[in-house]
């Protein structure tokens, strides 16, 4: 039921990501200020946007689960958050590499977006111990959904708070984080972002299909055992 359209989606993902990398290396110019290392931006920023989007989507699916009581929405929410956490590791790693290359330190506390992302990441890591220490399936789904909703509401609030705390000592403007890119860089960025979104959706559907299949298998095995 989850695998519908998976093959064309996977093909579109492969094409878009190949195009994105081609654009990154052969089309987009080197940044005048930071040089070649700035190209990590085309991986880091789309990954961060998609990870945050995945967290929010997890919260929306969780609302649907609580509204309908249909456990398939909980599975969707779980897989979205799971993939976002994996992307989150990538975001923190590429962010640290970029920080080291352009500011000389592996970690900078006065970059509010990076710091807020770390707090959000730490919070979502608690999803696993919370979810898997509840045995009853119905309760597990409900409690995980409540967590996903609370954490989803926390994400924007946390960004506001951290930004306010940092701008207290380091005033900075929004456009500095990439609001006004030149045309060729913007195109490359948008293609990279699209590639990352497609990759996320493909992996999400794939994981849902796999989880669904293994659950079906478990059910059939149980039935076979009862029959025998």
């Amino acid at each position: 039921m989850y695998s519908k359209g998976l093959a064309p989606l996977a093909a579109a993902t492969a094409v878009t990501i190949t195009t994105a990398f081609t654009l990154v290396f052969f089309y987009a110019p080197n940044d005048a200020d930071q040089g070649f290392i700035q190209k990590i931006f085309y991986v880091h920023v789309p990954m961060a946007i998609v990870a945050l989007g995945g967290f929010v989507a997890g919260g929306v699916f969780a609302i649907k689960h609580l509204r309908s009581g249909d456990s398939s929405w909980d599975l969707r929410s779980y897989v979205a958050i799971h993939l976002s956490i994996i992307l989150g590791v990538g975001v923190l790693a590429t962010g640290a590499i970029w920080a080291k290359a352009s500011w000389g330190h592996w970690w900078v506390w006065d970059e509010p977006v990076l710091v807020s992302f770390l707090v959000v990441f730490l919070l979502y890591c608690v999803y696993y111990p919370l979810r898997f220490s509840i045995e009853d399936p119905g309760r597990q789904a409900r409690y995980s959904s409540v967590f996903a909703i609370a954490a989803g509401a926390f994400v924007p609030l946390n960004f506001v708070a951290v930004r306010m705390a940092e701008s207290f000592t380091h005033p900075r403007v929004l456009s500095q984080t990439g609001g006004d890119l030149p045309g060729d860089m913007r195109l490359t960025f948008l293609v990279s972002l699209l590639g990352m979104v497609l990759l996320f959706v493909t992996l999400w559907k794939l994981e849902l299909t796999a989880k669904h299949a293994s659950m079906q298998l478990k059910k059939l095995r149980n039935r076979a055992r009862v029959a025998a």
Partner: protein
Amino acid sequence: MIAAARTILRKDLLIEWRTKESVPAMVLFSITVYVLFHFGLDRDSLDGELASGVLWVTLLLAAVIGVSRLFAAEREQGGIDGLLLSPVDRTALFVAKAVALFLFLTAVELVAVPAFGLLLLGPGLGGAFPELLAVLALGNLGVAAVGALVSALAAETRAHELIVPILLLPLLVPVLIACAQATEPLFRQEAGPEDLGRWLGLLTLYDVVFVLLSVAVFDFLLED
């Protein structure tokens, strides 16, 4: 609903009054952490950013104890079944638990804040009033709302004493930012520019969001 909330609250306060479990432990914990900070930082008196940071980190860590004990009576003695079987609105339960936590935190701060002034604070507490009261009240409200939600979330897990701190502390980062930033000018040696309004605004926003959110989702916890 108000009557039910009041009854549950009265029960919680009575249990705390008779067992004297959470509040004394939280007070003792706070003072111990001051001693740890004294040696850890190797400073006899603190002011400004360091003072407000130490005070708020200590208070939030003490709150973790209160939150992890909030459903202790129900969980350990099986009272949760009685509570769930009774025709009581879950919102009433949330309100009662959040108010109880708010009162516990206030009681702890009545001792822990003067103790901080006595033991570690350089400039003296006198200059920090009445602004500090507003920060404490709004901070407590946020901690109470999030704390009641977190303790209900963790109540049914196998490792709740593990889940509570790692779930509560990241959620309280905005509270820490706002409270520490708002308190920092009050603890300076010489009065500096204050920016109380924006931090109290942030705290109010946080409180409103999490009170509404907790009321909305609490129905789905502690079911059946």
